């Protein structure tokens, strides 16, 4: 298999920093705002998302390129992906429960939340499209890297957010802004800061 190293690095940088799933693409906002109140749970959720995203991007890529495309039923993409992801999460949950209770204890409560996390579905759909850098369809390795790195980008944003929100617990937020609005303002300021990464390219 021909691996384009440069493309992989570019995909990684884009997924983590430039097109951060949360702060730039608006994917996975529900868990981002829901699970970012405590740092410990943010880390747990982040790990769970990285894990599921990686597995999901591999499996959906295989299904898409070896099943849907050859039989020319790629219009079934949405249905197939969501079913695959839903059963995958179930499977992961059961496997973890059986083989790694430690990991299950750490990630277990976050797994059910992941089925409807649009970040997972989002990465699957993106991987079925074209690579921004080469204008070619994603290769298997590229989609795998995209999955892992998008998960890491999601986790990065989530963990930063959780740190800030824990600090904001101690602040005197004006009443109308308390709760979700201030979380949105925080996310907005984070997104402004992340604009600093736009155009980042190590190979120019």
């Amino acid at each position: 298999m021909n691996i384009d190293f440069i493309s992989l690095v570019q995909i990684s940088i884009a997924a983590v920093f430039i097109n951060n799933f949360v702060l730039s693409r608006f994917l996975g906002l529900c868990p981002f705002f829901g699970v970012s109140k405590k740092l410990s749970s943010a880390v747990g959720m982040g790990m769970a998302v990285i894990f599921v995203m990686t597995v999901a991007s591999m499996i959906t890529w295989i299904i898409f390129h070896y099943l849907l495309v050859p039989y020319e039923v790629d219009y079934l993409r949405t249905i197939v992906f969501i079913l695959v992801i839903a059963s995958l999460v179930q499977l992961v949950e059961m496997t973890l429960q059986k083989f790694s209770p430690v990991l299950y204890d750490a990630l277990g409560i976050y797994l059910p939340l992941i089925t409807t996390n649009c970040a997972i579905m989002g990465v699957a759909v993106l991987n079925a499209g074209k690579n921004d850098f080469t204008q070619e369809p994603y290769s298997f390795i590229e989609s795998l890297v995209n999955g892992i790195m998008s998960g890491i980008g999601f986790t990065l944003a989530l963990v930063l957010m959780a740190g800030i929100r824990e600090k904001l617990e101690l602040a005197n937020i004006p009443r109308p802004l308390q709760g979700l609005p201030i979380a949105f303002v925080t996310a907005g300021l984070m997104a402004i800061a992340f604009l600093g990464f736009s155009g980042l390219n190590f190979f120019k």
Partner: protein
Amino acid sequence: MIKEELKRGIIAENPILVLALGLCPALAVSTSLQNGLGMGCAATFVLICSNIIISLIKKWIPEKVRIPCYIVIIATFVTIVELTLKAYFPELNNQLGIFVPLIVVNCVILGRAEAFASKNNLGRSIIDGFVMGLGFTLALCILAIIREVLGSNKLWGLKVFPGFRPMTIFILAPGGFFTIAFVMAMINYFRQKKEGGQS
């Protein structure tokens, strides 16, 4: 009764602004009124249709496979929307991008299917789908109007104020967050004022 239902969907239980559901599409596609309305209509269509089907077949669906069945039904309608957009509204389809297939994971739709349509009869489910979809669409349009006017000085693609220099940030990601924060804060402010007045 319809009036109360409307009030519930649009104000009291507004999916985006009050329940904070379906935030991803709400922020991602609210950069212009066209996109916002397009997404709102698409989501409302899926919402109503899936509510109809689910309330019709709810009796035959075993409890255990309930969720997968709902997902399949929702995904079916999403695919229909996707194909239709591609065929007849290609520009809108391009603009909405991956958020069209992502309607399938929109928590509003699955949430209504699970919480309402699976427990109520056809008529009520249709009404619920309609009002919730309307609330979703309206919230999206409000966000979209603010963002499009401030961010590109346009509405429906047409310029609005002569001499006004738009703040691009509002059509970028941070502006989306700020806009929804502002709208929610306003809602909170008035609600708190009302509650404060009552007590």
